[in-house]
């Protein structure tokens, strides 16, 4: 119980989001957003999850460079993988929603483009890993690329959208949009969004820990 309480918590949180999230009363905004605002409980947590997992991944990459323990590389790899999956899911959930609300699944919004670049950068991370055969070298070089890519990408994701106009909420017109506008959301939407962030992130951590255990088992089998 001491070790797996958070898995039960993840289950309960996601159960809440997937049932009560569809039933809770949300503002209809003169018919503009209708019920589609409930996408906030699914789409937004994907981005929180992606950013959290990429950040954890870069922390493990740093740890690897300082301690040179191969285990840290498994952590960095698997968190980057889960982050990429969450990013792709975020793009898909956004595109389905945008198809109805903005008129087309892809409208070249700065946030959409930034997210697509993020996923491309992390896909390059997996290609780079695959192209190095020597294991120690692979761990070290992918850790270096991980840190570099993170440092190049995240300032632009966090700074640039605030400088240009976007269709995403938080609108300050030409002043730029951060992507969320907590001051202009109904309390029900905000609270269920945070439940979603917690639930989906915990689920992502769960998936990642399973994959890390698998990596360690494979390594044990290969090297005795």
């Amino acid at each position: 119980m001491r070790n797996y309480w958070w898995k039960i918590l993840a289950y309960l949180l996601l159960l809440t989001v997937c049932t009560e999230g569809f039933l809770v009363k949300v503002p209809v905004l003169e018919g503009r957003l209708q019920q589609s605002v409930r996408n906030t409980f699914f789409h937004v947590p994907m981005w929180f999850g992606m950013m959290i997992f990429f950040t954890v991944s870069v922390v493990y990459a740093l740890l690897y460079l300082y301690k040179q323990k191969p285990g840290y590389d498994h952590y960095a790899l698997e968190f980057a993988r889960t982050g990429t999956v969450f990013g792709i899911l975020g793009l898909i959930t956004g595109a389905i929603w945008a198809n109805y609300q903005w008129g087309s699944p892809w409208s070249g919004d700065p946030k959409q483009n930034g997210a697509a670049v993020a996923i491309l950068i992390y896909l390059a991370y997996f290609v780079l890993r695959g192209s190095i055969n020597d294991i120690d070298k692979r761990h070290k070089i992918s850790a270096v690329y991980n840190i570099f890519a993170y440092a190049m990408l995240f300032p632009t994701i966090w700074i640039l959208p605030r400088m240009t106009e976007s269709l995403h909420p938080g609108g300050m017109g030409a002043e730029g949009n951060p992507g969320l506008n907590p001051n202009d959301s109904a309390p029900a939407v905000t609270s269920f969004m945070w439940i979603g962030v917690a639930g989906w992130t915990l689920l992502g951590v769960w998936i990642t820990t399973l994959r890390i255990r698998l990596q360690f088992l494979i390594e044990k089998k290969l090297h005795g």
Partner: protein
Amino acid sequence: MPDAAIFANNMSTSVKHIVTLIKKDLLLEVRQQYTFYGILLYVASTIFIVYLTMGQPEGQVWNSLFWIVQLFVCVNAVAKSFLGDSRGRMLYFYSIAGATDFILSKLVFNIILMLVMSLLSLGVFIVLLDNPLTHFTAFLGISMLGGLGLALVFTFLAAIAAKAQQQAALMAIMGFPVIVPQLLLLSKIAKTAFEPVIQGGIWQMVLVLMGLDLLTVILALILFPFLWKD
């Protein structure tokens, strides 16, 4: 000797190392002229192809073509910067100069190379594709800034790619997504050089760009020693 004097002494030796290494790279470039002329030919023929297929495009197209050509020129010019040195020679540099001096010399050399290339491609662009610029000096400055940023990022990526197989392909796979934010900023800043009045808001973007450049240098200095050691 007091600490400050030791520090000053270390600084002067490391500056000496860096200058020597840059001189070595420049000398190699002068001796093996075919690589330098190869890139020149690359620049000229790429822009000539653009001219033949596009004619003389208007401002926005001109701008985006300029940055795409810069990107490809940079990949080709910088990619080879770690290939010329064999394993044994790298070990030799490591023992006499140290990793940070070595990467700094490569960064400075590639910046010089890219500044020359930027000037050159700007010249060829204006000759072949006409000059839609209203603020020539502003665009000149922006293209220098762009050359600087591209050179920094790709030098570091070349250092990573040099450790893996299929370096040329990896440079493109790693480099193109990583450089997108910078290119986006650059083309946005450059757009003002085509308009009658330079907008005030561009300084904010120039600052972000310079911040990214500084970040690249710092990361290269911190991370390169890890790449170097085998």
